[in-house]
């Protein structure tokens, strides 16, 4: 018996959708617009994250060692840095490597090479290149380098300088920009989504307002709440499913165009990103679309189901 009821409700939903005609398609259109807003936000977030990652990757802290600093002390410092939860990676460039790098960089600069040869010994110290997981964590790492922990390792003497202090201002600013950017992005997303939901809800409510009297009559002939509501909710789900398909179809050529023409500007190929996250986007849109349609219908019918 529940199976029969279920089938009837599904069938009723399709009939409602079909007989709704232009009104049903208006609802699909509005849900489509909402889903387009959501997709745009997803793509925009991708660009934002990609750019922020790019910028973040350019930031690092370098610890320069004094000339002739003992290798074991450097390794000890490196190990303790690597154990910090804030640290993403530590790259060690030894004094010899630094010299080799210097030589290749100045290959064609004969006077410099000659001067270097004249000194006879390596005038350069090694250095550690530290990347934090978050930009905001560089302060902690710099503090650590100045703390007693490091001193107790007896490495204070081997540190020539830490370039955090020179970069501190830039890093701080970047940090503020990134966190504000994320906050603003979140706020705009929230506002846009709320507006879309309100518009969609009201449109679906209008489609059901047309059936206001029928809903009352159904109650008078003894139909249960689910029997009355079900088909409207299914029609709502159909709006969501159709809107998902339309949105996905619309964004295919749109991202293709962006990928062809805007990759340099955005720093990321939108078409590749769209294809790579297709399943994820599809799932988000389908769930949002169906939930939006079903919940709006549910609430709208409830209004006319008084007794």
């Amino acid at each position, binding site marked *: *018996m529940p199976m*029969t009821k279920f089938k*009837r409700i599904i069938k009723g939903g399709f009939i*409602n959708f079909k*007989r709704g005609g232009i009104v049903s398609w208006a609802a699909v259109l509005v849900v489509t617009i909402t889903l387009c807003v959501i997709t745009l936000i997803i793509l925009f977030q991708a660009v934002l994250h990609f750019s922020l990652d790019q910028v973040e990757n350019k930031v690092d802290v370098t610890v320069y060692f004094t000339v002739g600093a003992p290798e074991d002390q450097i390794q000890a410092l490196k190990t303790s840095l690597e154990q910090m939860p804030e640290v993403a990676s530590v790259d060690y460039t030894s004094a010899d490597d630094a010299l080799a790098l210097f030589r290749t960089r100045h290959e064609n600069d004969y006077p410099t090479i000659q001067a270097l040869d004249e000194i006879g010994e390596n005038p350069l110290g090694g250095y550690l290149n530290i990347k934090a997981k978050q930009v905001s964590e560089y302060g902690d790492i710099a503090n650590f380098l100045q703390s007693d922990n490091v001193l107790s390792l007896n490495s204070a003497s081997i540190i020539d300088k830490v370039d955090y202090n020179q970069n501190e201002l830039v890093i701080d600013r970047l940090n503020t920009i990134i966190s504000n950017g994320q906050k603003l992005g979140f706020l705009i997303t929230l506002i846009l989504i709320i507006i879309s939901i309100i518009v969609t809800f009201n449109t679906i409510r209008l489609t059901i307002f047309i*059936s206001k*009297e*029928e809903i009352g*009559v*159904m*109650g*008078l*002939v*003894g*139909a*249960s*709440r689910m*029997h009355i509501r079900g088909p409207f909710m299914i029609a709502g789900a159909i709006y969501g499913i159709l809107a998902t398909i339309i949105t996905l179809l619309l964004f295919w050529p749109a991202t293709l165009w962006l990928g062809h023409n805007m990759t340099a500007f955005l720093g990321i190929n939108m078409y590749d990103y769209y294809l790579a996250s297709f399943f994820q986007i599809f799932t988000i849109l389908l769930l949002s679309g169906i939930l939006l349609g079903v919940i709006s219908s549910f609430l709208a019918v409830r209004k006319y189901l008084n*007794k």
Partner: protein
Amino acid sequence: MIYFNNVSKIYKDATALLDITFTVEAGEFVSIVGHSGAGKTTLTKMILAEENPTDGTVFFESINVHKLKSKDLTKLRRRIGVVFQDYKLLSNKTAYENIAFAMEAVGKTEEEIASDVPHVLELVDLSHRVSHFPHEMSGGEQQRLAIARAIINQPELIIADEPTGNLDPVNTHEIVQILKKINDLGTTVILTTHNRGVIDSLNKRVITMENGKIIRDTKTSK
């Protein structure tokens, strides 16, 4: 079966029912007559709990109709078939679907629906209008569809509010015969009408209303 106790219904600017007390026994055929605006439709609305009374109580057997929770009210309504004065057909459904919907509401199977609907449509002479929507049907056809919907589930009580108002004498006679037959099979019938001829041909109990009050209650028996 139905018990009205001092029921009054007062709208903002109109008194539709005033201190109505009467009883309908199971198996009775009761006609309610009265001028337009006398309160006949309002009285039927009380039984279905379509509206709440301003004062008084209405019982269906031992159930206080206006105290019911929505779920139980739905169950009660499944036991009553109603021909509404304004038909109240589902405008978005065909003649067939209108009847089928009422059957689905009481939980009939697909097989029962497939076999019963054509039958009842034939009974009210609508076999040729199966897939018409209400707005594609004449007033009389709509009225007969409303009657078909009211009787399809073999309810314990049929309330027919002016069910012959839009019908020609032949159709009127047929509908009255159907109601009479259903009543003979044990169903309680409450009929409101303006049609003197109908009442005379029935020769059953007649309640006369005026300005929201019952002014006469004549129990005629054959």
